[in-house]
């Protein structure tokens, strides 16, 4: 089920009312579990068994890890969880990629394989998200960061919690599981905050991202015949399309969870206002980058074992991050570009300059230097998106070449500029708190804006475009 459909518009209030009509936490969790399975099964019920098996394996593995006193055994159990989760991920997501790449490699050295055993595998929605979530649980138990739960229903609800099941934020057991175990009470303010986030998320997805996609798709499909200015616009549009698409999903997920009395982690904190690449990665898809930091980068030694180890680790996490997004060399190229940009900061010891505070927190407009930093960072990020969006690396280079060498004033596709300006202004005004959009003090003005946004969402809602991150 997609968030931007009529089915969800009916599913959400029904689950919500049923949920709060129940006082008992266990029964509430059973309802969450049932709703989550309905939500997921709406797309393809056959893949429910994957979530279920993943849940069962990690539930028992974590208990075994906790029970045993021997470190070696703990490690074996942990490996079991990791191997299991990575196997299903690799099989469903990367199997054909590996086979096809292998065949291409062999044919490049003159050996042509005639019969190739590839499979027509459907990528189960959200598999990259929930496998990472369950793996992190076993890892946390192994590291004694959390206790293994004996409450299977709560654990299964944590794994399959429908707001964030298919596209994140990738939750940590330490944050979500305790919320599943404790009693939850209806809170009017929390629910209204949630509804506001849902409205804002839907607006970003349905009105902005989907409208931009109508321009981005023909530009990328016909880049050979367009001028450089139009290609430049296409690239800018894609930057905002992917941002509004994915952050819109996260907002809806966080908002929906709030309606059920659950607080999820923030996933996007105004990434396009970052002053350098390292700040960008602290603000873009935070739940994934922090996952890589905590479970790969730091265990590999992080930055504490000398510069070369640090460089190696940065390369590793960015390339894995690229590969996580999809089975294509374009994603690896995208990850590699970011690793180079990030390394430049690490080597000059400038990667920790902007750790928490948003740009111009106490000013209405940025300084000239801040504006310059934001623009440069945005430009670098945007250039890297070419590799993310194009079908092949060759296409990416040809796109960039055409854009730079045939630059001219764009004569078509200019209508998207309106959406870009709209999102920049609204994000700028809202930049102090990503969890409180549309925070306008006047009730009347606020309601007028709500109604207008709702009307725009409904009128744009006929296309039912999938969220970009569903494919990952």
């Amino acid at each position, binding site marked *: 089920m997609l968030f931007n459909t009529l089915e969800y518009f009916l599913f959400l209030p029904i689950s919500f009312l049923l949920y709060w009509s129940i006082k008992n936490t266990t029964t509430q969790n059973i309802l969450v579990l049932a709703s989550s399975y309905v939500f997921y099964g709406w797309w393809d019920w056959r893949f429910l068994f994957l979530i279920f098996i993943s849940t069962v394996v990690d539930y028992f593995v974590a208990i075994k890890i906790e029970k045993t006193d021997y470190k070696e055994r703990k490690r074996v159990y942990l490996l079991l969880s990791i191997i299991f989760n990575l196997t299903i991920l690799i099989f469903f997501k990367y199997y054909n990629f590996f086979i096809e790449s292998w065949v291409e490699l062999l044919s490049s050295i003159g050996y042509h394989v005639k019969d190739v055993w590839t499979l027509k595998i459907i990528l189960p929605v959200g598999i990259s998200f929930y496998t990472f979530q369950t793996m992190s649980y076993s890892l946390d138990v192994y590291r004694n960061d959390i206790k293994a739960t004996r409450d299977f229903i709560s654990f299964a609800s944590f794994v399959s919690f429908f707001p964030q099941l298919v596209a994140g934020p990738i939750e940590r057991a330490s944050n979500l599981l305790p919320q599943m175990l404790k009693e939850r009470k209806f809170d009017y303010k929390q629910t209204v905050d949630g509804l506001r986030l849902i409205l804002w998320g839907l607006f970003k997805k349905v009105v902005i991202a989907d409208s931009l996609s109508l321009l981005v798709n023909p530009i990328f499909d016909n880049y050979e015949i367009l001028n450089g200015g139009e290609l430049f616009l296409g690239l800018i549009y894609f930057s905002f399309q992917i941002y509004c698409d994915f952050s819109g999903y996260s907002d809806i997920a966080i908002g929906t969870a709030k309606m059920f009395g659950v607080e999820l982690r923030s996933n996007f904190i105004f990434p396009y206002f970052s002053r350098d690449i390292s700040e960008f990665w602290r603000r873009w898809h935070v739940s994934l980058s922090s996952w890589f930091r905590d479970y790969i980068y730091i265990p590999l030694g992080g930055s504490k074992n000398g510069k070369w180890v640090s460089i190696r680790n940065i390369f590793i996490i960015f390339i894995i991050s690229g590969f996580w997004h999809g089975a294509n060399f374009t994603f690896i190229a995208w990850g590699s570009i970011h690793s180079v940009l990030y390394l430049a900061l690490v080597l000059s010891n400038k990667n920790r300059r902007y750790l928490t505070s948003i740009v111009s927190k106490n000013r209405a407009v940025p300084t000239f230097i801040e504006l310059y930093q934001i623009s440069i960072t945005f430009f670098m990020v945007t250039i890297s998106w070419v590799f993310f969006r194009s079908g092949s690396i060759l296409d990416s280079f040809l796109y960039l070449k055409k854009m730079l060498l045939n630059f001219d004033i764009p004569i078509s596709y200019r209508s998207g500029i309106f959406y870009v300006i709209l999102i920049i202004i609204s994000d700028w005004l809202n930049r102090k708190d990503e969890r409180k959009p549309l925070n306008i003090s006047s009730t009347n003005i606020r309601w007028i804006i709500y109604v207008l946004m709702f009307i725009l969402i*409904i009128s744009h809602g006929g296309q039912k475009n999938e969220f970009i991150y569903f494919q990952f």
Partner: protein
Amino acid sequence: MKKLINRTLLFLTISAIFSLLLGFLSVVITNKTFNFEFKKYQNILIVGNSHTECSISDKILSNSVNISQSASSYFYSYIKVREFVKRNPTIDTVIISFSDNDLFSEKEKWLSSTEKIRNKMTRMIFLFNTEDYLTLFCSNPITTSLQSFIVYSDFYNLYIHRRSFIGGYNQFNKNKIKESILEFNQDTPKIDYKIAHTELKYLLKIYELCEKEGVHLILLNSPVHPVLQSHFSLIKDRNYKIASEKMTNATFLDHSSYKLDNSMFADLSHLNGTGSISYSLFLKSVFSK
């Protein structure tokens, strides 16, 4: 919880009222500003579905205006004929697509399916009268009701694209004839002997309207690929019979066997750009006689 439910209902009610008002306003404005009028020398109106949409270039057949649109039920063609003939006394001929499969019973869905109503209703509603709305409502009450709240949603598109948003000549620049033949051989479509009664009803209404307005109706079976032509030959007589018995003064032009190279087809039942140019030139010569 009670407060939340009350506030939510209030919000939805305000939004619904505002949407309906906005929809009403957009219909009135579109109706007032839409360019219905043809040039004086344009005396042929072309309506129908993708068959006429892709096969007749109104730039070549310059005394015509093509406002056909893919997947258009005869219901929408009827509305177009009614509104354009009313506003353009110069129209003396209406060409409508009447392909071999246009009355297949599956075409009933072209009026009532959710997908089609979503696609057509908001772009055409400014031409509706009450009866049209009720017809659509009776065919699919839920979707029609829901769409009624977003009538305004195509206002911008109608403003930008104007007449082409409700139909126009579509020059396909593709040729997928090989794939289409392969697909046809793998999964040959069945001949449907059942008739789409609603479609026939509106086709007859178009005929009656043309008769009343003194406009000549041409039922056009546009060119199709020989593979499809022989496949549909079983049903051709039925359509001819309907035309000759129920629309006696209409002309049935069967150009389904008009010879074109494989390169001139987009697929088995549609012409591509080169095909449509060739056919439009032929049609022009037919009309000039």
